[in-house]
């Protein structure tokens, strides 16, 4: 049985350009990292960049 972490609803304290939920904030929400953390981080960062692009393109492009 896996232990689920409690999901935080707190906004990130620092959101650099290119991020909506920066990896350190997401990392804190995950259970114990038992495998390759870089793999998880890379894929999280990619989808977070899409999310960022969506938000900012609504302002800049449309």
């Amino acid at each position, binding site marked *: 049985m896996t232990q689920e972490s409690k999901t935080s609803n707190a*906004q*990130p304290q620092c*959101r*650099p*350009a*290119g*991020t*909506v939920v920066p990896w350190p904030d997401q990392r804190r929400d995950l259970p114990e990292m038992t495998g390759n953390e870089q793999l998880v981080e890379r894929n999280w960062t990619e989808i977070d*960049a*899409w*999310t*960022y*692009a*969506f*938000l*900012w*393109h*609504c*302002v*800049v*492009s*449309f």
Partner: protein
Amino acid sequence: MRAEATERLYQERLARYTTALRNGKPDRVPIRPFVAEFTAKYAGMDCQQVTQDYRLAFDAAARCAADFDWDAIVPNMVYLWGTIPQVLGTRYLAVPGVGLPRDTGFQYCEPQEDQAWMKPDEYDALIEDPTGYLLNVWMPRTNRYLVGDGQPNTWRNNVAWLQGGMAVMQYFSAFGGQIERLRRECGTVSAIAGILKSPFDILADKFRGYIGLTMDLFERPEKVLAAAEALMPHMLHIALSTADPNKQVPITIWMHRGCVPFVSPAQFERFFWPTLKPVIEEIWKHGHQTLFYAEGQWHHHWQHFRELPAGSIIYHCDRDDVFAAKRALGDRFAISGGIPNVLLSFGTPQEVRDFCKRVIDEVAVDGGYIMDAGAIMQDDTRIENIRAMTEFTREYGVY
């Protein structure tokens, strides 16, 4: 064999276009018209079709590129896919066929000053966390299906975020295929990649409104400057993340209301330029040029643009005097555009040819010029005038 010939044509055009962009002298003047709703008119469609269905917009652009044999075009200069504001319930956009007549181009609706999308007491929130402000305040306020932070959730909110993300991803992902199609079908170069706006224009266009922002320049100038500075890294990030990976075609900055007489020279120097110039310089450090799509007249600020590294921008003339622009900027930057839209809409083909001759003789004379209208061409542009501009430039604009 045909595929090889088309690819050869593409490479010739790419060399011609990029040579001119870098202020060099190619074999002849490249032709790169920014055709928007004109493509619908030429292809027998209306504004609704090319706004509500990007596949039709792609078809219309490709047909124009093939028939006119242009060197480069924007893959879809109509640029808005009407489904995106529809799924979000965007309040500031009106699209043809839904509220607007189907033969009218889409419109931006700027609210009254007291209804601005950003309230004057929200500067600190924007400055502290621009992305958070977008997510939690601006998006819900500008899109009627979205619910703001702390408000009761709705099923439409859930669906709208989902559909909005899917729609933007679908639309942007389709551009790769369109760029490849233009190359494969007619050997046409995709003219630009990457988008930029000045922080000042973003504040005016999308947050405070023009009137609200100009009042803020007097009532809370420090906040305006801090907000523009807070937006700079985000403008840079969007520009670089959407730029041409091959660094051949420029990022485009669409310049709106940061110039005299919308602001004073002193306001330009205090707010607009210091929050844009470093972004352009950083883009240049990354190996990308920026196309200054200078809507309206920007001649009051040409001496500031000269501060930028030579070759870092291409100056696009809208209502500026293109001959004066060449004299003021031509030693440092390539020039594009300058053919008056009013001439292309209401003039005769002979008047268009006469004006193009003067531009080729006086502006394109040593290279560093790209033939185009002053502003994007909508469905009031006469087809015979576009044909005259194209054919005359191809025949006369040979070095």
